[in-house]
């Protein structure tokens, strides 16, 4: 079947056995670095001394093959602070391990993992910003989401919310000031954003130009930070959290995001999801993916073509069709709030036949439309001139930064959680994971366009299944308690393949009906981190094109 992944022989990695991961072998590998063990739902955790983090991560990466630092979670207990490095393998993301680093309350200080995984840079900055853990040997430890002048660390228990904050516009104090990096260099500092036609939201790129080429670029994020994690921590598992995921990646990828929470929470609480609901979830999620990718294509065209081109309007027009289908299903166009723990909110709209017909009409029209896009976009010679071999992201660099989704697949990394860490109804369906080896802007566009075709294949199969589903077996939700109170101190990290890549949720329960810690691993956050690698030394237009090809949504970057 097409879903079979050509698995590389990873047996030379420590801990890999036929039965799965042998954590004892990993413990032996880490040896005296391990001072304790924890058991999370998704993986075993090794407790490591704060001053030997890089060594532990390094051994796991080099000798055990854990090349994907998916997320870094910082949290606070009554007696300690803790950073958790969630490690996975690009070759097989079901092989997971957590590296738990406790630090003292008085002086939370641990070693940075940046020397092993470049992606730890931003993740640790976020941990420092929100939780106040200091990472030694970090190259650039400063606040990332909040302004430089912020007082206190807002996710700490003792944080005083009433405390007045003074936020200056210091970075904009004098945008015209002279900026010479070296004594005789003719470089020029330019603020690209936060209000700029190409940043697709409030992103601020501190850019240093040398003529028309980019000498240095430093993304400044956090303009759209809405304390999503904290809001989720104050909400109950059962109903109150589900609306929030719609607001992370709000480019019509809502159901994909909801699924990330649903998957994590269902694993945390041990809930079953009826098969019928899984099929509906799979279908609606792929509709969201098509809508998201169409918009990504249209806005990328904006960046490369100029404003108000045919492509942008065409993709908006075609996206509208999917939006209507989703509206029929969920009653909403933007904030769907359709999934529920243990299933979905309600069944397909009546009359069912009419709805299936609409979906089929959409699927039938799609190939011709995609052909048109290929004529207009990917077949255009100027477009190829602009996109081929620009914004190059080598696979090993992409892996080090934790890039996932179309960005990773455009760099030839065969990684898709729908297949590699199966959930929903995906394993039962016939579809392919799209990869391109170009590593450039062009490949990323191609991957998205081909993924639209694959999503259409999935939707088509789901419609066939739903149509023949016996009426008495249409169970849309399993039996879920009215109030969910997972056992005290249960921890889970689960991810799904969202529109932009791996969207992961870490949750720790404390025995109440709200999570003690809710951490969102945003794919855009990690993907955006690769921008300086892609665009330093290239031209300004390529910087803009690369940014567009990353397809970030600031709502998800800043959360």
């Amino acid at each position, binding site marked *: 079947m097409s879903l079979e992944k050509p698995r590389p022989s990873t047996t030379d990695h420590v801990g890999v056995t036929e039965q799965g991961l042998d954590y004892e072998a990993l413990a032996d590998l880490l040896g005296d670095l391990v001072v304790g063990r924890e058991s999370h739902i998704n993986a075993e955790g090794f407790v490591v001394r704060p001053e030997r983090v890089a060594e532990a991560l390094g051994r796991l990466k080099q000798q055990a093959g854990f090349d994907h630092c998916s997320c870094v979670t910082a949290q606070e207990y009554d007696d300690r602070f803790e950073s958790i490095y969630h490690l996975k393998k690009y070759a097989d993301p079901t092989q997971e391990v957590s590296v738990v680093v406790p630090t003292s309350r008085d002086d939370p200080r641990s070693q940075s993992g940046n020397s092993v995984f470049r992606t730890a840079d931003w993740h640790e900055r976020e941990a420092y910003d929100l939780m106040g853990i200091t990472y030694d040997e970090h190259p650039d430890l400063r606040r990332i989401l909040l302004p430089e002048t912020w007082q206190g660390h807002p996710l700490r228990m003792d944080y005083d919310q009433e405390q007045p904050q003074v936020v200056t516009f210091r970075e904009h104090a004098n*945008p*015209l000031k002279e900026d010479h990096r070296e004594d005789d260099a003719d470089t*020029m500092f*330019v603020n690209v954003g936060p209000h*700029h*036609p*190409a940043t697709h939201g409030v992103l601020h790129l501190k850019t240093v*130009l040398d003529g*028309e080429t980019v000498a240095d670029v430093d993304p400044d994020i956090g303009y759209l930070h809405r304390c999503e994690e904290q809001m989720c921590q104050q909400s109950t598992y059962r109903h109150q959290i589900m609306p929030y995921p719609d607001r992370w990646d709000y480019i019509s990828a809502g159901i994909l995001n909801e699924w990330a929470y649903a998957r994590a929470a269902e694993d945390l609480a041990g809930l079953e999801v009826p098969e019928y609901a899984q099929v509906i979830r799979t279908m609606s999620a792929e509709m969201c993916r098509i809508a998201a990718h169409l918009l990504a294509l249209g806005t990328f*065209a*904006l*960046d*490369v*073509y*100029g*404003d*108000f*081109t*045919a492509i*942008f*309007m*065409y993709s908006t*027009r075609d996206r509208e069709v999917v939006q209507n289908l989703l509206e029929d299903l969920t009653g909403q166009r933007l904030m769907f709030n359709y999934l529920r723990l243990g299933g979905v909110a309600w069944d397909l709209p009546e009359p069912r036949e009419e709805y299936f017909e609409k979906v089929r009409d959409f699927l039938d029209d799609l190939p011709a439309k995609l052909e048109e896009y290929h004529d*207009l976009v990917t077949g*255009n010679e*100027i*477009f190829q*001139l*602009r996109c081929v071999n620009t914004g190059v992201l080598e696979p090993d660099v992409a892996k080090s930064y934790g890039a996932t989704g179309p960005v990773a697949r455009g760099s030839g990394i065969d990684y898709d959680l729908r297949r590699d860490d199966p959930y929903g109804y995906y394993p039962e369906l016939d579809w392919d994971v799209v990869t391109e080896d170009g590593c450039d802007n062009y490949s990323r566009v191609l991957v998205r366009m081909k993924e639209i075709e694959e999503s259409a294949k999935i939707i088509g199969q789901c419609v066939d299944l739903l149509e023949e589903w016996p009426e008495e077996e249409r169970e849309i939700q399993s039996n879920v308690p009215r109030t969910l109170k997972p056992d005290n101190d249960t921890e889970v990290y689960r991810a799904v393949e969202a529109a932009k890549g791996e969207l992961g949720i870490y949750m720790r329960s404390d025995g109440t009906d709200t999570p003690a810690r809710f951490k969102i691993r945003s794919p855009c956050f990690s993907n955006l981190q690769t921008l300086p690698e892609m665009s330093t030394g290239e*031209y*300004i*237009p*390529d910087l*803009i094109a690369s940014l567009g090809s990353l397809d970030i949504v600031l709502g998800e970057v800043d959360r």
Partner: protein
Amino acid sequence: MNWGLLQQANNSTNGSGNGTNATNASGGMGGGEVQTLPDTLASLLGLGDGPLVTFVMGIVAAGLVASFLLTLVAVSGIWGKRKITAAFTDRIAVNRHGPFGLLIIVADAVRLLSKELIVPDGADRPAYDIAPIIMVSSALLGFAVIPMGSGIQLADPEAGLVYVFAVASIASVGLVTAGYASNNKFSFLGGLRAVAQNIAYEIPLVVTAASVVIFAGSLRMSEIVAAQSATLVSLGPVSIPAWYAFVNPFAFVLFVAANLAEVGRNPFDVPEAPTEIVAGWQTEYSSVYFVLCYLSEFIHIFLGGAIIATLFLGGPAGPGPEALGFVWFVLKMLAVYLFTQWARSAVPRVRIDQLIEIGWKGMLVLSFANLLLTAVIVGVAF
């Protein structure tokens, strides 16, 4: 430089053609038999032809032509552009104000003019104010020598074509002035890009035009038009005129492409490049100044269309009586305008280094090859 190139081309024509060029002979170099619009006005009013009368009538005629152009820009720039772009992008566009939404022109004009004029801190004041005026006037001045048919031509100097290119390229000065005077880094980048682009594309443009001059044997606009009135081939009842677009399609394509760069439209809109450098040189212009910038862009597009129509599409020639010439001319100009909007809707923008490379390594070489070829053909055939 333009002048020198064209002179050279002209001389070489005379040399190689050796006076046998038919059009050359029929047109003559010294005559001024074409009646210009000021003359017509003067004679209609029975005012004789003193220098004062010529001066006053020249002003009046220029006012008439400029008013027409501004009206054309208002209709096509504010209303037509939206409708055309909407048609390309599957939308409806303005349709609420007046018939076909035409009253949006009034609404937009009022809106734009009533906006606050924000002058950035540290702008180089006289230069910042003058730049938009330079750009608009350079485009308008070009129309002085364009034969628009039905007897509408303000002047018909011997070096008409050179004059058009000379005044049109004054706009580059306006662009760079606007760029640096705005005290904005995006404007600055845009201004520099505009100058680099204009230099890279002006030369192929002028050299390609020179190949037309070789054919026509004259720089005088009216004679270039007259030279295209002959019949190229007759297909039964339909006779195809000897427009230079048909005689030398290669030069026509080159010229149209270079003209896209000259007016800064996709794929060559890098001086503005909205998604890269916000709005390029016009980032800091608002209200009336913005209107002037906008106006100059559109008049430049129309001037480009007028030059293309005159050099390659037989000027005001078309079926029907000669009095309809003006209509045909405007239609040809609008066709070129439509083409620029089409390109804008569907063609990606090239990168600045690619743009310069296409200009210097591609277009320049091709245009000189075209010039040489034309000179050889004219020398051998006539």
